[in-house]
C-alpha cells in the first residue's frame, strides 16, 4: 500500500507540475522556458519472473505509442507528462492455481499507458553534459476475454494485466555539432505488475492474481538527438538489459517539436 501511495504521489506530481507552473510560465519569457510536444514509440522485450514462488520466467514484449508534452524549466532541465497506448504481450505465462491451468498464447493485450519523465542537468563541461533522468510509466491493460477451448462445456478466461516501470539514472551527452547530440546512459530500471485471470466454466468461478516483476533491473542505453529542422528534433535510443539470461532490449524512436 505504501508503495502504491508513493507511486500515485509521483504520478500526480509529475502530471500536475506543468499546470502548477503555468502561472510562472505565462509570466516568464518564452526565451528561457519552452514547451515541447513529442511523440514517441518504444518496443521492449525483457524477461519477467512470476509464479507461486516467483521462479517461473517468460518474456514480456510491449509496444508503447506515447504522446509526450514537455515543459522546459531551465536549460537542460525539463519535465514531461507521458500518455498513450500500449500493446503488451504476456505469452507463456501459466496460471496454475486455477482449477484448469491456463497458458497464455493470446498475443498483445491493449491498454493505456501514462506517467511522467524528468531530466535534470547536473553538470555541463565543454561539449559534455551530465544529466539525471527518470521516467515512470504505468500500463493499464484492458480486460479481455478468451474462450477456453476443447472442454465439454463452454468456458471463458478473463484477463486483466497491468505493469509499472520506473527507471532512473545518469546520462552523459556530447554536442557533436549544433544539430547532433549523442548520449550514453545507465538506468536502474524496475518493472513490476500483476495479471489477474478469472476462470469461468459453468460452476467453476475462480480467480488468480499473479505478480510479475522484471528479472533484471539494470540497463545501458545509447542514443542520439538530431535536430532535422529548426524546432524539430528526432530521438533514437537502444537499451540493453545485459544481466538477463537472454538479453533484453528496448528501442525508442521519437520526435519533438518545440514551441
Amino acid at each position, binding site marked *: 500500500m505504501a508503495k502504491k501511495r508513493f507511486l500515485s504521489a509521483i504520478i500526480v506530481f509529475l502530471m500536475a507540475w506543468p499546470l502548477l507552473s503555468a502561472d510562472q510560465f505565462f509570466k516568464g519569457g518564452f526565451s528561457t522556458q519552452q514547451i515541447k510536444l513529442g511523440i514517441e514509440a518504444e518496443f521492449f522485450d525483457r524477461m519477467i519472473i512470476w509464479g507461486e514462488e516467483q521462479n517461473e520466467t517468460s518474456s514480456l514484449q510491449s509496444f508503447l505509442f506515447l504522446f509526450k508534452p514537455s515543459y522546459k524549466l531551465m536549460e537542460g532541465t525539463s519535465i514531461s507528462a507521458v500518455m498513450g497506448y500500449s500493446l503488451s504481450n504476456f505469452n507463456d505465462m*501459466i496460471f496454475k492455481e486455477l482449477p*484448469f491451468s491456463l*497458458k497464455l498464447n493470446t498475443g498483445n493485450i491493449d491498454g493505456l499507458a501514462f506517467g511522467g519523465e524528468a531530466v535534470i542537468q547536473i553538470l555541463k563541461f565543454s561539449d559534455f553534459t551530465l544529466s539525471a533522468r527518470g521516467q515512470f510509466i504505468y500500463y493499464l491493460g484492458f480486460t*479481455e*476475454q*478468451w*474462450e477456453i*477451448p476443447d472442454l*465439454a462445456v463452454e468456458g471463458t478466461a478473463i484477463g486483466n494485466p497491468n505493469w509499472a516501470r520506473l527507471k532512473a539514472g545518469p546520462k552523459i551527452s556530447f554536442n557533436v555539432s549544433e544539430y547532433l547530440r549523442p548520449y550514453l546512459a545507465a538506468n536502474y530500471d524496475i518493472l513490476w505488475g500483476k495479471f489477474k485471470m478469472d476462470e469461468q*466454466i459453468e460452476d467453476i468461478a475462480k480467480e488468480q492474481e499473479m505478480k510479475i516483476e522484471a528479472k533484471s533491473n539494470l540497463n545501458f542505453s545509447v542514443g542520439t538527438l538530431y535536430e532535422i529542422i529548426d524546432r524539430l528534433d528526432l530521438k533514437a535510443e537502444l537499451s540493453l538489459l545485459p544481466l538477463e539470461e537472454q538479453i533484453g532490449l528496448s528501442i525508442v524512436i521519437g520526435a519533438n517539436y518545440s514551441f
Partner: protein
Amino acid sequence: MKKTKLLSVVSLILSLVLLDSYISAFQGKQRKSISDFQENLRLSQTINQKSPPSQSKISYSNDHILVKFKSSIPDEYIKATMSSFQINEYKVIPRINVFKINVPENSSVQDMLYLMKQHQYVEYAEPDYVAYAMVTPNDNLFSYQYALYNSGQYIGPPGSPQGQSSADIKATLAWEETKGTVDTLIAIVDTGIDLLHPDLQSKIESGGRDFVNSDFEAIDDEGHGTFVAGIIAAETNNNEGIAGVAWNCNLLPVKVLDDIGEGYYSWIIEGIIWAVDEDVAVVNLSLGGAVPAYSLENAVQYAHQNDVVVAAAGGNDGGSVVYPAAYDNYCLAVSATDYNDLRVSWSNPGPEIDVAAPGEYIISTVPTWYFPPGSVPYGFASGTSFSTAHVSGLAALILSLKPWMTADEVMDVIRYSADDVNENIHPGKDDFIGYGRINMEKALVPIIIEKKEINETSE
C-alpha cells in the same frame, strides 16, 4: 457387482492360462528386447529411469552448439571463420549442412552463440537442445493397458480384440505434468488389498481397517479390492507388472466387503467415515447397492463436506445407477467404455452418471494367492468398478498438483475435461457416459488459450 465378480473370475481363469503361457513364452523374448533396447538406446533408458522434466524446463548441451552458415559462403571462408574462433572440432550434419561445433575450452556455449549470431556469414546459431520422450513407464504389462495409452494394440494375449487408437484416458501426456505425490492418499473402500502384492506392497500406507472382521488389517480375501488398487496406484516404472494411474500416490485399504464381495451398508458407511478421518484425498467406491439409504447418503455427504472426492461405480446390470453413485451432489458416478471408446451395454445409464472411463477387459493386479504358485499375479476383468478406479486415480493426481482445490472443483474439472466420445449420437451430457470419457491430459496439462476473443454482442 455380482456381474463384475463373475466376469472377473471367468476372465481371470481364462486369461491366466493364456497370459501365463504367453508371458512365459514371450518373457524371454521381451527381456531380450528390453536388453537390446537398453544397449542401443541408453538415452531412452535414462529417461525411463528418471523423471523427465516438464515442458517448461529447457536444457541443452554445454559443450557444443549448432550453426548454419549462409549458403553463399564458400568452404574456405567457413574454415577461416572456425579458425578465427579457435574452433578445432566440428562435424557437419549432411543434407542440411548444419555444423555441430565443439565450443573451445576457453569459451562457453553462451559466448560462442553470441559471437556466432553476430557473424556476417552465419544464418543461424542455436544451442543443441535436449528432447524428451513422452512419459512411458517401463512396467512390462503396460502395453496391455489400453485404458492408459491406446495405440490400437491388441488389448490382451494374441487373439484378443484390437483397440482403437486414442481410445484412452491420455495418461502418458498427463504424467508429463504430474505423477502424483506420496502424501495424496486414496482410500480403497472395498474387499481389502493384498498387502503382499509385489506391485502394491510399497504403495500401501498402512494395514488399513477391516470393518468386516473388526480389525486393523484389511486383507483381501476376494480379489476385487486388489484389482481396483492396482489400477489406481500400482507401483509404476519398476520394470514389473502394470502402471498405476496415480504413480506416486499411496493407498489406504479399507475392507467393507467380505470374501464373496458383499458387505452391509453399515460397514461401508463406517469405512467411508474412517477413511475421511484418516485424511484421505479420494475415496474409491467400486461398489454399490440397488437401495437408497439416508445413512449411506450421509456418509458420502460427510466425505464431500470434508473436501474428499468420492468416485463411485454406476453399476453393471444395465439398470438404474446404484447407490451411493446415485447421490449426485456428493459422488462422481462412473460408467464404462471399452477399447473403442464405446459405452459397454452392461454399464448402468442414468442422469446421475457424470463421466465414463475404460472398464472393459482391464488388466490389473490380483492377489498373490489367487492363482496357483508360479503364476503372475495379474489378470483381466470388466466392470464399472474398474472405470471408477481410473477416475479416482485422476482425482488423486489433480489433488496432488493442486491440493487447495475443493471436492466440487475437482469433480467439475473431471467432468468438464471429459471427451464427449458419443457426441455423434448423444451430443452433450447424456445418461450413458455423462460428460464423456475422462481425459487426464485436459484435466492436468495447462490449456493454451489463444487470441480468438469472445464477442459479447454476438448472438
